[in-house]
């Protein structure tokens, strides 16, 4: 193990964590989360009920699950807008495999995850080995996999808009089970995925390669990294994440539909960017993405609950949040503003101390 994961010197590690480029941003995200809790909690005490938050979180699963792996893709300088289509495709594969071909539900679920991974691999192959822009390939992928989901769904007896339902209780229990009576299993799965992603990206050789490819693919290639394989692998990972999301969502809703992934693409990209991932590649952290995804979910949950805002208007605050964050970061990165902030710094510190 120690060969794969560099040894973690606790003191050094802590200092590195503190001084790390993403740490301060993660602190800001934590502050944002706290602020959301305080504001929404003050407006409506119902917001603070853990159960309700968990229910909202489970509803936003695609954002949570997929965004942490789309972070990998974005760090290599690519982008992935096909995941939502893959979620629906996985769901339909499970439903049709179980209903039309009489598979065991768990076999069907495994098949769904394999198909999703293959979808990711196909797009990754085109991006990495054919040199087509990631945006175009995954755009085509979102058409293709969404369309395939529709086509495959015609193999079942039910109309596409009704979806396939009537899954065994054992399968539905996957999402209904709660750990210690409070934490739903999907959240536990998410935490496990997050741990895997963290170890993979920030604590393994593979993760260093991902960053290196994002910073400079040529340099990576010259230093003996198989840059193409690394790029392709990130799409495989995001396909895998989409597949797992598909399984969990199908189990949670008890229904297999081709549009299960819904319109979460924008939220997923927002979570990655808000989490500090550079869309040009080379920088990002899964912890930041996860925090941002939680912040988005709280916003989507708190706004309707506390301020009676219709769910359909939620695109506005999230759009505003995204624009404000990127503009704010651009302003802060401006040399003139940075110099001005530098002059302010001593004052700021005393403020923070007080």
């Amino acid at each position, binding site marked *: 193990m120690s060969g794969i994961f560099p040894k973690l010197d606790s003191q050094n590690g802590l200092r590195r964590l503190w001084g790390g480029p993403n740490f301060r941003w993660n602190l800001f995200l934590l502050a944002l989360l706290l602020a959301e809790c305080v504001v929404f909690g003050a407006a409506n005490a119902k917001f603070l009920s853990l159960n309700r938050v968990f229910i909202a979180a489970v509803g936003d699963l695609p954002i949570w699950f997929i965004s942490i792996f789309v972070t990998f893709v974005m760090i290599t300088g690519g982008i992935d807008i096909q995941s939502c289509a893959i979620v629906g495709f996985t769901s339909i594969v499970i439903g049709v495999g179980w209903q039309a071909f009489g598979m065991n539900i768990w076999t069907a679920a495994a098949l769904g995850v394999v198909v999703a991974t293959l979808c990711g691999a196909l797009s990754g192959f085109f991006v990495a080995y*054919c040199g087509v822009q990631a945006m175009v390939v995954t755009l085509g992928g979102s058409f293709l996999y969404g369309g395939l989901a529709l086509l495959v769904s015609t193999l079942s007896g039910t109309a596409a808009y009704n979806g396939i339902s009537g899954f065994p209780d054992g399968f539905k229990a996957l999402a209904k089970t709660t750990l210690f009576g409070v934490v739903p299993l999907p959240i536990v799965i998410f935490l496990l995925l997050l741990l895997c992603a963290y170890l993979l990206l920030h604590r393994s050789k593979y993760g260093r390669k991902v960053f290196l490819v994002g910073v400079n693919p040529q340099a990576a290639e010259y230093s003996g990294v198989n840059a193409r394989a690394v790029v392709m692998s990130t799409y495989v990972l995001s396909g895998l994440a989409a597949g797992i999301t598909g399984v969990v969502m199908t189990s949670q809703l008890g229904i297999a539909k081709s549009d299960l992934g819904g319109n979460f693409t924008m939220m997923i990209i927002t979570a990655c960017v808000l989490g500090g991932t550079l869309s040009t590649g080379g920088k990002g952290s899964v912890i930041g993405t996860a925090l941002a995804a939680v912040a988005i979910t709280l916003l989507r949950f708190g706004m309707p609950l506390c301020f009676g805002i219709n769910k359909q208007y939620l695109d506005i605050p999230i759009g505003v949040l995204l624009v404000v964050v990127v503009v704010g970061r651009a302003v802060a990165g401006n040399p003139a503003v940075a110099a001005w902030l530098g002059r302010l710094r001593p004052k700021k510190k005393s403020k923070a101390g007080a």
Partner: protein
Amino acid sequence: MNAVKKVLKAREMTALLFLAALFVVVGIINPAFLADSKNVANCFNDSVVYILIAVAMAFAIFIGEIDVSVGSNLGLVAAVVGTMLQDGKNWFLAFFIGILMGTVVGLINGWGVAVMKIPSLIFTLGTNGILRGLMYLQVGTKQVTDLPIGFKGASSYALFGLPLTVCFFCVLLAAAAIHGVLTRTKRGRYFIAVGDNAGGAELVGIPAIRTKVLAYVICGVLCAVAGILFASRAGQVTSQSGNGYEMKAVAACVLGGISLSGGVGSVVGAGIGAVIMASISALLVFMGFSSNFDSAITGVILITIVVVDALVQRRAAVRNRHARLAARTTARTGGKEAAEQ
């Protein structure tokens, strides 16, 4: 002769040939398609909104950026103009306000991308959310359906019993005019120059930032016009109108031979790509497929075209490199070889 060769070698030719082949193949499978000129004409008539939105997107892509807010921009303008017409307001006032809104959206996008230097995908994703939300505010769960008959009929009006509508000819003319300006005038070529090499363009005295902002403003205005046409053609506006058009516009541009890295392609290509995108579902019906195949086939076509294009270009690049190398080596030893021969 030279001009003919140039036309044949143009990147848009692939798209045009593909479109023609598509029509012919469908005609062979189902002769009823080509028997009535109306079928082909309808494919063109139905594509006016797509053509405008693809040309709008082409401006953003020319400068090496992207604008994913075009669908929401179109929808919002359609909703606002539709509501005003429904309430019996003056047409020109409604159009003016619609186009003004498109301009403002373009200015905001241009400011964020060119001045603040924010990655365009991220910034326009944000404005996309805001616009979509505003559209819900405007339309809500209701629909804008009570549009004046004259307004609804305007876009399907045809002269002299031609199968093609006046509206299509206008859009065609506008696209041709834009193509002329982009390729024949100094300022028009700025867009391609900035997209090809922003730093280089700046060094030779092209105002790169101003050009980028202008590209976004043109994009916004074209979206607004597309929105008005959309309201007229569809006859109704819901809160979902224009949803996903940004993806179709990107697909149309890519099909038309525009490179997403900027600086390559033409608005004519975007227009041809848009016709292909708009025709696919109608063509599938004639080929006897259900509409379920629609997006899968779109995806296959899109991926095939871009992958083939990328492979062809890579081969061309390798061949060029070899040719350069060969030229350099013969330049050194060329004298001797020539003498021997």
